[in-house]
């Protein structure tokens, strides 16, 4: 299994811990990675202004991976959805497919089908497997109670692809429990982080993020676990502004699943980018035996 990391804009330009931790744990778990220079934005923002532009960007990224014979692992839920959606639209509309082909030809590329698009949940839960992860744990996260945030775009709509149950996602909680922690369900598990309202309704976006963090905090969890760079940017990166927006005190540690996995595998917190998290992750790391 050869894998190329598709960071997407948020991880590539700002959420560096996401890519750092992913690279560290994949290396540790023996997953072969290939570098694909030239990846860009998945296309999402352009979806607001037209169809051809964004589908072209998605198809171009897929073609780059295909040229290297690599599967993609997406670090942002939205990128993952956009790739599947671009493919579905090209299959539905020969006219669109024709336009995309001729645009790719201008860059000397072909639209290549069949690139494997993996979500980290599929990679860790379905490929590497919960049992294998359990076997590799060196520092079990005993006594920690962590809430899982799978994120909207990974699980909906189910017609597009099926990464996890769209109403009751269980893969992330199971992966967290494989590390020795507990991850019980909570009523706000499906609540949205607000990431894509940030560019059109900032206050509403920060309110969504703040209310999500507040709910998890009030249930008494030790922290919140994310698997998407866009969601993490809201819940960790903007936790302070979200607190101001909703007028509450928020101090919930938020970590990427890959950071947590790295800690359990015994890796150095700095190599997992934990110094880059904005929320008080020290409170969480300090509880690990």
């Amino acid at each position, binding site marked *: 299994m050869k894998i190329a990391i598709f960071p997407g804009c948020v991880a590539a330009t700002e959420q560096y811990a996401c890519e750092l931790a992913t690279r560290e744990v994949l290396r540790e778990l023996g997953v072969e990675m290939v570098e694909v220079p030239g990846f860009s934005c998945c296309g999402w923002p352009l979806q*607001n202004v037209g169809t051809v532009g964004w589908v*072209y960007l998605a198809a171009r990224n897929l073609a780059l991976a295909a040229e290297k014979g690599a599967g993609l692992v997406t670090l942002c839920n939205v990128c993952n959805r956009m790739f599947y959606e671009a493919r579905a639209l090209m299959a539905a509309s020969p006219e669109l497919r024709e336009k995309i082909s001729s*645009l790719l030809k201008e*860059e000397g590329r072909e639209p290549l089908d069949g690139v494997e698009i993996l979500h980290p949940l599929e990679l860790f839960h379905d490929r590497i497997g919960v049992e294998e992860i359990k076997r590799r744990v060196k520092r079990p996260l005993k006594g920690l109670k962590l809430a899982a945030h799978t994120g909207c775009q990974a699980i909906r*709509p189910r017609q597009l692809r099926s990464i996890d149950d769209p109403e009751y996602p269980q893969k992330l909680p199971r992966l967290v429990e494989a590390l020795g922690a507990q991850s019980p369900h909570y009523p706000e598990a*499906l609540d*949205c982080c607000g990431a894509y309202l*940030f560019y059109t*309704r900032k206050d*509403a976006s920060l309110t969504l993020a703040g209310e999500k963090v507040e709910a998890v905090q009030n249930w008494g969890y030790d922290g919140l676990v994310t698997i998407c760079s866009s969601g993490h940017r809201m819940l960790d990166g903007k936790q302070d502004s979200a607190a101001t927006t909703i007028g509450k005190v928020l101090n919930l540690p938020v970590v990427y699943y890959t950071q947590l996995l790295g800690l359990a595998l015994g890796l150095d917190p700095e190599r997992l980018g934990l110094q880059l998290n904005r929320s008080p992750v020290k409170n969480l790391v300090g509880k690990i035996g």
Partner: protein
Amino acid sequence: MAGITDQLRATKPQPELVDKFYGVVEKLKLESPFHCFQCFKCTSGCTSFRLTEIMPHSFVNFVRLGFVEDMMRSELLWACCQCLKCKERCPQEVAPVDVIFLLRRMTVGSGAELPEDLSKIIMSVTETGFIQGLQKVKVGDTSVDRGQLGLPPIDLPDLAKFSSVLMKAMEEQME
């Protein structure tokens, strides 16, 4: 959002835009708003409806009735957070979020301005390939970039070519 009787009093349906709307629905094989039976399920679970007046079932209904232009002009188009719950849960396989995004594209295509922050990230994608430039992030009192963290460089080998093909792609219309 406005009630249906207010709407009927205030304006008339816009048949040319209805044709245009359905033309795209047909071409891209999107779900048809005509299958909607106004059960309200989409709105009852809508994330943004908790905080704003957006009502996805209402967008679908007004489009069904032909008020495409009025819906294109609604500020509430920009209140959707794309949680996709409406698309997932609709018993009729209508996708209100797709209706909303098609209306966004139509309104931008007709010359309406984009919300400022959205417009900025779109500009940045066309110029650099990403929604923003590479950020320096804070660690204690200093700040670091990708390279200092040991991450491989992110660069588009031929940025001028990338931008020109992307601009051309964006000029091609399906809407």
